[in-house]
């Protein structure tokens, strides 16, 4: 096969640059048993510069997975437990009066880190959620009259619990849209759980080694953006996103009354970016339809608003996305 030069070069570069992916997976695999999809999603978020919302019942290693990822990178990690009495200043930082200097000094909050774990984000009121989500979007924080850029790479991994909804503040649709991926974690398999028990009962719990620097991540991110995406793949992404908005145009009229609103242009952008990151993880210099399908559920599931009819019929956004993928023609 006689590949054109740029793709061949790109493929070679990606083979070279993506070698750390296997290493990260290996290191994470020491600590996290199973949850392959979770690990892949964390890598996609890391490489595509997108924040991740993790949803799962307690005890599925959500926090541990994020902590382990930060361990593999020589980066600053902070964890914020969101509670109802949390204030924006607790998150961003504040001005503290110094008696010694007779002046106000800036005390930066835990958001000034490379990896921020916002644990149980839906337990805090809207003003704290807004402060975090604004920082996620702008990648800078203003304290007093000074604006501080956030650390690079900056990745927010928020978790929320699908049960115990009493006393929670569900994230508004506009704010959920800021997350590139919403990953739903399920229970591990029986054999995996048996291994988890053994690991936890052993005297020495394994620890991931640090193998990357933030500069490596920044370089990998720039390579991810160079992954080739053909016009056919772009049209495939558009077809999928447009099918969430106008299902009747794609022979999906059964969902016409069930979708309140479909994916935004941000959904198309994130689907394209996540597909590129997935192709990078698979060590390919170009995107194929498999990549789009692999990330489609995580990118779109929180971007489709369901009507009361859908809820009455027990139709979920995942059902709609699956049907869209089974109906939209693959290029």
């Amino acid at each position: 096969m006689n590949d054109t030069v740029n793709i061949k070069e790109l493929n070679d570069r990606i083979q070279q640059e993506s070698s750390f992916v296997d290493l990260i997976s290996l290191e994470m695999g020491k600590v996290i048993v199973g949850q392959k999809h979770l690990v892949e999603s964390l890598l996609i978020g890391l490489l595509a510069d997108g924040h991740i919302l993790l949803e799962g019942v307690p005890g599925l290693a959500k926090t541990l997975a994020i902590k382990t990822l930060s361990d593999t990178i020589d980066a600053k990690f902070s964890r914020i437990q969101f509670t109802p009495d949390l204030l924006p200043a607790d998150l961003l930082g504040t001005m503290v009066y110094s008696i010694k200097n007779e002046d106000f000094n800036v005390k930066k909050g835990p958001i000034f880190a490379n990896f921020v774990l916002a644990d149980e984000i839906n337990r805090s009121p809207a003003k704290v959620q807004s402060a975090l989500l604004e920082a996620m979007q702008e990648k800078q924080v203003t304290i007093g009259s000074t604006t501080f850029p956030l650390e690079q790479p900056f990745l927010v991994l928020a978790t929320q619990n699908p049960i115990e909804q009493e006393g929670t503040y569900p994230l508004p649709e506009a704010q959920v849209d800021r997350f590139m991926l919403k990953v739903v974690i399920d229970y591990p398999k029986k054999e995996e759980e048996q291994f988890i028990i053994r690991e936890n009962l052993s005297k020495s719990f394994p620890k991931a080694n640090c193998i990357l620097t933030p500069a490596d991540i920044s370089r990998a991110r720039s390579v991810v953006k160079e992954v080739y995406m053909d016009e056919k793949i772009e049209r495939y992404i558009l077809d999928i996103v447009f099918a969430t908005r106008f299902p009747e145009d794609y022979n999906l009229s059964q969902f016409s009354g069930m979708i309140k609103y479909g994916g935004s242009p941000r959904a198309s952008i994130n689907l394209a970016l996540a597909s590129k990151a997935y192709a990078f993880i698979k060590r390919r210099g170009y995107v194929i339809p498999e990549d789009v399908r692999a990330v489609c559920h995580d990118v779109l599931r929180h971007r489709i608003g369901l009507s009361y009819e859908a809820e009455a019929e027990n139709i979920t956004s995942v059902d709609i996305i699956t049907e869209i993928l089974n109906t939209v023609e693959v290029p």
Partner: protein
Amino acid sequence: MIRIFKTGCRLLLIMAVMSLSLNPVKAQSLKVSARFDSTTIKIGDQVKLSIELDQPANVKVKFPLLKDSISRGIEVVKVFPPDSSKKDGNLHIRQEFLVTSFDSGLHYVAPLAFLVTNGKMKDTIRTSSLSLTVNTMRVDTMKNIIDIKAPAGAPFSLAELLPYFLITLGLFLVGFAIWFFVKKFRKEPVFNPRKVVEPPHVVALRELDALRSEKLWQNDKTKLYYTKLTDILRAYIENRYEVGALEMTSDQLIRALRMINLDDFQDIDELRNILVTADLVKFAKATPLPNENEICLLHAYQFINNTKPVTPVDATESGNTGEADKDVVK
């Protein structure tokens, strides 16, 4: 003089008529009568008025003209045609009228006049006067006023629907007959017209032939060539194995085919090679060598020929049948 003559003639006619009326049994008499079936009715009820005339055949008698009413308060509902008969040389004419009244009380009916003409003599003969008592409903004033009774429902009968049913059936039969004869006239099959559905492999092989003749990759349209090639194969697999091949990615398609027990897994491997090459061309700007393009097309022919349904053919007929479906490996 003339006046004396006319008066004399009239007297003679009256005397003749009177002499006839005094003796009704005798022939050649003139007699008129009128009577109600019942002299008492309830308000709104109907009663028949019968008028009878016995007359000699040579006398002309004109019946009284009763159109709308016979007196004030008694209305004519229907006029029956007169009935006539001959007896003992006399003509007997009877006519009935159906009458009603909506005014209570005693109604007087003046004598009905018949105009008699005998030659040049004319006279009028009258019936006796009649009366009709119309009673109103008794109202018990001690009781409260009650509403008008609702109309009594007529019992439903299927016979009422029968004409409509027959008309509908008739129209349907006429329509069907027209449709049937039009179909016959056009020589189209009347019932269960069979659509000729070509087997998927026949369609796919024909489209591969067309693709080959288009010479796309020879004209630097490699991407279009592979797009068409994979579309033909996907459409064939979809119709042949009833899997949603057009909506599947290459890996999904291969996995789906492995689930189906194909006889030869080599065919799947060859198909996989075609799809992988096509993906590289379509999504990674790859430009295969000319022999790779030819091999992909050859493998596509082989895949279709090896996986098409096998139909048993008689040994005697094998020489001249199945030519259309014959393996074409070009």
